């Protein structure tokens, strides 16, 4: 037991963030008289905050590589506007418009990555410029709003996975199936990884912590699945998109040479250079990727709004940065996890949702979100300071 306590003590940050999320959910569940976890609210919580999660994934990578990206909100508006105009004025099929949007995002990322990686201008400056440039371009192109978008496109952020399997006692079977696959994937993946680690004599977390973590995570997924299966639509399509992204990017960051190079560049740039790592290429690709994800967030936001809006995405960069930091990404680079940022994004989302249900003014919502960010990072630094002598 003391071994378990010690382990938890050492990993207080990792578990702390999960506990904080659960605590915040419970708090708002009480404060909103149970409205927070009404099935339809859970579905719209996910739909309204998908953009933060998508952006946070890219932002973690940018921050781990010791950069920052302030332009993502403007890129969301610009790419969203272009997509809307393509579909509305040029009648481009929506799927093709999405592909063009993603390609455009990658090009924007390459543009910014070029200045950061190959010219050596600090990312803060480059993306501050980008923030102005792309917001301006969005306004030039869109004016204020371009409405009238195809139904298929609107469905991305407002629709659900079609209920082709019917209901079992008012529960959507497709959603139940997705949830079951997610839980099974989690358990099988974690157990296999643990067994493999044991086989190779690698340190594993204490069994109690492992089981506890699996049970809690599995129960959370099951609970969310249950709520969603009772919601009007079932599983939101964006949830599937985000889920795929989380799995894919976690794999990239933990298991691939590229992901390891991102951590190496962020941990000690000079050492990475002298280890033969092409650090400029790493920096460049991190920004290309951020542009791609910002474009996806632009598609999702535009779809959700049902229109290209010139002022869309305002302050999104700060939501994404906050999510990354709340999720334990180190301010100085080199440390950060995709899963952490997703939890950070969920905390922000629950705050948004809960405070909105309680009809707290948006001004006060900002105050509260600001304080949460500050406390989360302060907690991080204090617990780290206690860890070292």
């Amino acid at each position, binding site marked *: 037991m003391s071994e378990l306590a010690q382990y938890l003590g050492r990993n207080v940050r990792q578990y702390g963030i999960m506990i904080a999320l659960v605590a915040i959910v419970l708090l708002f569940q009480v404060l909103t008289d149970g409205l927070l976890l009404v099935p339809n609210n859970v579905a719209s919580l996910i739909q309204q905050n998908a953009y933060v999660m998508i952006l946070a994934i890219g932002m973690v990578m940018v921050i781990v590589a010791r950069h920052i990206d302030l332009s993502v909100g403007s890129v969301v508006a610009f790419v969203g506007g272009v997509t809307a105009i393509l579909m509305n004025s040029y009648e481009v099929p929506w799927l093709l418009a999405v592909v063009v949007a993603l390609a455009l995002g990658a090009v924007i990322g390459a543009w910014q990555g070029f200045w950061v990686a190959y010219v050596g201008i600090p990312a803060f400056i480059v993306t501050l410029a980008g923030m102005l440039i792309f917001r301006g371009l969005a306004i030039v192109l869109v004016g204020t709003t371009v409405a009238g978008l195809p139904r298929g496109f609107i469905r991305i952020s407002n629709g659900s996975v079609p209920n082709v399997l019917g209901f079992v006692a008012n529960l959507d079977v497709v959603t139940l199936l997705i949830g079951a696959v997610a839980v099974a994937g989690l358990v099988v993946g974690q157990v296999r990884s643990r067994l493999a680690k044991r086989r*190779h*004599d690698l340190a594993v977390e204490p069994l109690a912590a492992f089981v506890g973590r699996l049970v809690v995570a599995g129960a959370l997924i099951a609970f969310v699945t249950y709520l969603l299966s009772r919601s009007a639509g079932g599983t939101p399509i964006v949830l599937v998109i985000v889920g795929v992204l989380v799995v894919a990017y976690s794999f990239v960051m933990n298991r691939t040479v590229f992901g390891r190079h991102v951590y190496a560049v962020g941990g000690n740039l000079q050492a990475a250079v002298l*280890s033969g790592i092409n650090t400029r290429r790493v920096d460049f690709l991190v920004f290309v990727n951020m542009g791609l994800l910002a474009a996806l967030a632009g598609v999702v936001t535009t779809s959700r709004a049902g229109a290209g809006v010139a002022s869309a995405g305002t302050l999104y960069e700060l939501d994404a940065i906050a999510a990354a930091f709340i999720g334990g990404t180190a301010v100085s680079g080199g440390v950060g996890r995709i899963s952490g940022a997703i939890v950070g994004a969920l905390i922000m989302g629950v705050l948004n949702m809960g405070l909105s249900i309680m009809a707290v003014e948006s001004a006060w919502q900002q105050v509260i979100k600001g304080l949460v960010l500050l406390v989360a990072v302060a907690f991080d630094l204090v617990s780290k300071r206690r860890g070292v002598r």
Partner: protein
Amino acid sequence: MATQPPILQMRRITKTFPGVRALTDVDLTVRRGEVHAVVGENGAGKSTLMNVLSGVHPHGSYTGEILLDGEPCAFRSIRDSEQRGIVIIHQELALSPYLSVAENIFLGNERMRGGVIDWNATNSEAARLIARVGLDAEPDDKIVDLGVGRQQLVEIAKALSKEVRLLILDEPTAALNDEDSAHLLGLMRQLREQGITMILISHKLNEIAAIADSVTVLRDGATIQTLDLHDEAHPVTEEQVIRLMVGRDLENRYPDRTPAVGEEVLRIEDWTVHHPVDTERVVVDHASLDVRRGEVVGLAGLMGAGRTELAMSVFGHAYGTGISGRLYVAGREVRATTVEEAIRHGLAYASEDRKRYGLNLIQDITTNITAANLRALARHGVVDRYRETSVAERFRRNLRIKTPTVQTVVGQLSGGNQQKVALAKWIYTEPEVLILDEPTRGIDVGAKYEIYQVINELAAAGKGVLVISSELSELLGICDRVFAMSQGRITGVVPRAEASQERLMHLMTMDREGVSR
């Protein structure tokens, strides 16, 4: 000296950190006006003891008492201890690079008149202090433009501005060349004559023999013994101090080895390098050298001679501009303009500053060891974590890296073990030639011996090893041949049998005119 009353007595100091007892009942008595050396292996508790003394660890966080001039002290911060005249100069200098010498000297202690800085007083007093420490700089020179040696003198001037009575110097010469070290030791003698007491923490025993009046040996957080270096009846030898430090006899500081020298594996010809910013300046000037398989070759030179610059420019142009010359690895001419290419062609370079240029301190041992050759462990860009771990485990065993697991974060290891991780990283790239820049800097005697063993094993495996070192005794101890550099030129090569410190120093101090190409 023994007749002088003590200025400082630390009694039964015990300091624990969560899970570790760093100091156990440590006693230290320093007499007024002496230079008192404190020695011990890394982790023996020297720095912790000095942090207790200077108030970094505040009163109450340790047990035991500190008496200054017989009065008990309870320092709660560095400010408290400085007010009593205790000033510590840390190994990593605490100067602000873009401020001037004068501003740094009075940083936190500004000369003021009516609430604003009195620049006349600042600069004139700074000039006086600069002269007192023999610093060759002006009060308004920027710190960033001075070398480490001169920066060290600025630190001392800063200490003097605070009316220092007890000056603590933590490894003051670790980063200095022999010339600057000699100057610093001279200055310490001068300060002693002026009545300033000094505590000197150092790994360099010859330095201690040259300047200290007494020496206290710490081991595993405890005081082992204090020796009087002026005791005619019982003269203290270096071997005796080493024995006390490591707790065992260290018969030979350098492991034995029978060289089996094969064909040439590295040849550098006519290598010229220009400064990366000041592109007119020649940093390495038509240098040529060669290393054969199974051979350990030394590269000696004073600071600024261009040793590191030569090595890094060879290593994929990691330093310098306007690089010209020819490079041969294993008999084939090689053009390597990026580090990646250099590694591919069988070169490896372990930096002199492992924390800044060698290791990712926030990641674990495994990640650091495989960082330069990750692709060898990957298929389709996906790393095989289990094979990676077994690689790390192999190096942990072979290089005797002392750590609970290979998943330990490198920043938590001692200097010697960090150096082993840095070496492991380069050995894993399976190079033909390893260039090791100051491979034993800042690590203790026992760990040094182990590093030498690793070097010997590499040579025995048919690698060529080029060792850059500022410690001539080390080069003489482990190398088959030693090249000397001065002012960017190779000034000579001396085989082991003919080598002596004097001969090398002569070559290292040769000026441009004396060198024939």
